[in-house]
């Protein structure tokens, strides 16, 4: 006869088995239609490109990865850095960093403002930030287009005020992409910042003033260090989707101002270079993972300090 401990152990094992069974559908669907294909893509990045898109199956080649960074001159076969790709890569990173900084500059005061409202009205302010967040990204991009185009609200207003005589062409420039990304990703910065600021203990600020700190010193030495986890979380939440942006540069940047997302699409469309597209996608994922790693390390370091 089995001992009581033995029965309990078997019972526990049976439970674990049924827990795996219960979670199988979710794990399976995520694997089939989200994570698994990434491995197929990784394999594709190491194959030779087919003549009309797709790849030559089984034919190993490093050309895809090679052409992410280098190009071969068609006349004298010399190697040079792939300027077109590198400049798009650089634009993606640059625009994402600027977007993150701008959303932080706007989002921090906004989150602080909400956190210092009376308790019952805070909920309404947060709700007002949430609504644009849940609104279709394409619709918001399109809405931004109507503000910044030549006959748009911004130019009309500036001309009416007499600031400018001619409309400023903003559409199809890097500025347009920047406007769009700041507008679209702003809620992603405000919400985690607010979650941090809401927990801020204002007695610490009072103590700061009691010790003759000025407003700036209180902000710099007390508030910002205390809400650093929120700042890091918000920055990551804005930076990552900015880096992979596709719809915003396509609609606002036109055909010339590509970002990484559009360059990837190009390889699967007119470019007919799937291995390069796959290699570029993996590059984008690596960049995102580096950002995530930075976040995880930062969160682990500041996690123990305060709630």
């Amino acid at each position, binding site marked *: 006869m089995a001992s009581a401990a033995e029965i309990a152990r078997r019972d526990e094992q049976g*439970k*674990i088995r049924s*827990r795996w069974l*219960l*979670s199988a*559908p*979710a*794990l399976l*669907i*995520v694997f*089939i239609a*989200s*994570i*698994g*294909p*990434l491995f*197929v*893509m990784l394999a594709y990045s190491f194959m030779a490109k087919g003549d009309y898109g*797709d790849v030559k199956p089984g034919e190993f080649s490093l050309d895809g990865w090679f052409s992410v960074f280098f190009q071969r001159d068609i006349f004298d076969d010399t190697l040079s850095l792939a300027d077109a790709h590198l400049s798009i890569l650089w634009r993606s990173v640059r625009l994402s960093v600027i977007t993150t900084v701008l959303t932080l500059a*706007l989002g921090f*005061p*906004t989150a*602080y*403002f*909400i956190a*210092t409202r*009376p308790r019952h*009205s805070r909920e309404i302010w947060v709700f*007002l*930030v949430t*609504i*644009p967040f*849940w*609104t*279709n*990204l*394409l619709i918001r991009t399109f*809405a*931004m287009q*109507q*503000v910044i185009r030549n*006959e748009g*609200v911004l130019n009309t207003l500036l001309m009416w005020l007499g600031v400018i005589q001619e409309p400023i062409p903003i559409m199809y420039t890097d500025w347009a992409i920047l406007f769009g990304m700041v507008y679209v990703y*702003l*809620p992603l910065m405000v919400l985690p910042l607010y979650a941090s600021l809401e927990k801020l203990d*204002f007695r610490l*600020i009072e103590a700061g003033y009691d010790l003759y700190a000025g407003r700036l010193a209180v902000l710099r030495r007390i508030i910002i260090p205390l809400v650093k986890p929120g700042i890091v979380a918000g920055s990551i939440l804005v930076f*990552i*989707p900015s880096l*992979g942006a596709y*719809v915003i540069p396509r*609609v606002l940047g036109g055909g010339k101002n590509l970002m990484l*997302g559009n360059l990837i*699409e190009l390889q699967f469309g007119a470019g007919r270079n799937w291995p390069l597209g*796959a290699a570029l*996608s993996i590059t*984008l*994922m690596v960049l*995102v*993972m580096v950002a995530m790693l930075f976040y995880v390390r930062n969160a682990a370091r500041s996690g123990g300090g305060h709630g």
Partner: protein
Amino acid sequence: MARALFDFRTRGRFDIRSQPGFGAIALFTFVLLYLPIITLVVYAFNASDSLSSWGGFSLHWFAAAAQNQSVQDAAWRSLIIAASAASMATIAATMAALATTRTPPYPGLSFKYAFINLPLMVPEIVTAVALLIVFAKVKVWTGYTGLGYLILAHTAFCIPFAYLPIRARLEGMDQSLERAAADLYAPPWQVFRRVTLPLLRPGIIAGFMLAFVISLDDVVISEFVKSGGQDTLPTYMLGQLRRAVTPEINAIAAAFLVLSVALVTMFFFINRKKA
């Protein structure tokens, strides 16, 4: 209420909470968040043929959009995909949440948690082209080119969104009621159906609605996965933006906007009642 909401002034004495200029920046942020949306909706009521001039108030473009066969088809397709994907994602996520909460840690628990949330970490465009590669092959092998691919892809990225509120609800749930039912000789299935499920309902509804909105809003993955003639409303709009834009797009966008806002508002109130 309204006064408290718009009280930007500092009170008479020194206010330790205020920081100079923060109120003004916050005001600017809210204008920035809402000005584009409001512009878009206002132009949907424009009688003029183009977006450059205001030709008076009219519902003309709403009628035009409603009668446009492509718009009708795309809207219908979007709803079918969102409803199927959200239902499947919610069922799978509920099961997964039951298996990953209220349990002592067991091997694989944190793996499951991380794996289910993994689709959130991958840039959409990357998932989209990876699915394009795989589904292109499957389409050739099986000859099937129906809506199934879109529904499957949507289900996968909806699962983490459905999972989060359901898991949160489960973790906050008191287990004593279920224990009491079991003590009173209710078989496990009865306990689940009569006690656990009703208690879990707000979480399930919230999860479903999140998944529904996320599916309805998706542009990038749909754009790459769809076969010819399978436009959803967002991909139809994206296609139209390449051409000369008429206020018809604004009308579609405005209607879409109202639907999203209604769903989010409902979500907000369901969640608030719970708290």
